[in-house]
């Protein structure tokens, strides 16, 4: 479970996050906002990559503000697959799980099978298509069995045909392993296909909404803080 409350962040004079709050149980929540609205910064603060100015982050009830990213047990899928180019797809997938490889063997087979990676595991990242790169990126984040998963517009660089093909596969694996997911996007269709619940972010503030459509209405009609 994830709880972030009162998160504030500014870069110089620019306020990026202003008292941003979110709660996440075992669900896929889409965080919808305009580009440059602070969504990625919010995810990076939760992951421990960026330091917040103010606010608290709890993972499974434990405050993690002072923990570095490697101790937070968070899975992170960035905007670009960011695969390790010197490793094969299989080595990428197993990178975070290498310390307990035997224990996670079944999980490894389950994840790679649902994501359809079995045939490409021996390939190098540059030999993979964009869709497969993002699948490897997701599998790599899932293998260490994190408490929560943060996905930062993982399919943003791909065309709609590939996205429509990959999104159900993503949702299938995430539902199967029942991991809480915070899925950042600015695409309404993508949010509808992926998420169980929705939140809108605008000018550094977050508001819960009932549908992707409502979220987009909120962020498009507001030119100031929500």
């Amino acid at each position, binding site marked *: 479970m994830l709880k972030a409350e009162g998160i504030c962040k500014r870069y110089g004079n620019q306020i990026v996050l202003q008292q941003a709050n979110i709660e996440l149980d075992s669900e896929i929540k889409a965080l919808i906002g305009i580009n440059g609205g602070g969504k990625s910064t919010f995810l990076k603060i939760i992951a421990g990559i960026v330091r917040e100015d103010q606010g608290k982050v709890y993972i499974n009830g434990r405050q993690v503000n002072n923990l570095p*990213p490697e101790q937070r047990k968070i899975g*992170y899928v*960035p905007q*670009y697959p960011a695969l390790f180019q*010197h490793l094969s797809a299989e080595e990428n997938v197993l990178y*975070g799980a290498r310390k307990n490889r035997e224990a996670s063997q079944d999980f490894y087979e389950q994840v790679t099978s649902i994501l359809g990676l079995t045939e490409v595991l021996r390939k190098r990242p540059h030999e993979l298509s964009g869709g497969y790169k993002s699948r490897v990126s997701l599998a790599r984040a899932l293998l260490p069995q994190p408490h929560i998963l943060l996905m930062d517009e993982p399919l943003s660089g791909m065309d709609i045909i590939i996205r429509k093909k990959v999104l159900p596969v993503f949702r299938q694996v995430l539902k199967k392993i029942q991991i809480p997911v915070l899925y950042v996007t600015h695409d309404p269709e993508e949010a509808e296909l992926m998420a169980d619940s929705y939140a809108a972010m605008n000018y550094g503030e977050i508001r819960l909404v009932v549908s992707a459509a409502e979220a987009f209405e909120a962020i498009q009609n507001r030119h100031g803080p929500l």
Partner: protein
Amino acid sequence: MSKNIIHAFFLPLFLLLIVLPILALVVNLDKEGIQKTIIDPFFWSSVKNTILAAILAAGLALVVSIGFAYYHLFHKQSLVYKMANLFNDLPIALPHTVAGLALLLAFGRKTMGFLGETGAAFTLFAVIIAMFFVSYALAARALISGVDQMEPEVIDVARTLGDNPVQVYFKVVLPLMGEALFSGFVLAFSRSLSEFAAVIMFGGNLPGRTQVLASYVFTKVEVGDLDMAVTAAVFCVALSCLILSMLIVGRHRYAKS
């Protein structure tokens, strides 16, 4: 108009100030000088000293640069980084006689040396240290350029997968920096090959022991054996061309891969 001005000054100046001096060496090469030089054991010992010392100096420069690039990537706000960054390019800006004198005072035989009497001066070790002193900044710059080109997301992901910064650096960053590591080594190696002033001040110019190609050429000019000096100089040019070719081929290979 501006294009014509560039045509007018670039090519003549380039030919006059860069190409002509190199050609001057090659056209002054003569058979007798070559014969005398290739049977001179001190020439070959200076070649051996130069290559050996330059390889070790470049290797050391690369090791220290790897440490500096780590601070550049993960600890830019630390005092260690700020201090190292301040000193990093200083050896490039200093006259190399000053570098040689500084090394002599720090590690020399006189008691005014910082570390007292080390016995390092006027040995091949001193030659290596002098070469390192003047070439390190080039290797450091190459590595910094390499880490600056890394996708930050790659590092972020590795952190969330359980690696601390040192583990990320050795397992993800350095394996992806092959080109920067190669360039850093070759640049430091070529700079070390060409060093004269710092080497002669700290390492001396002892034929067979600490004499390197640059000081061999200087000695031959000083004693009037110009034909031997030219032969050794052309050998240096050929060696430098070889290294630069390696650099170009290496970069091309990395770019392709």
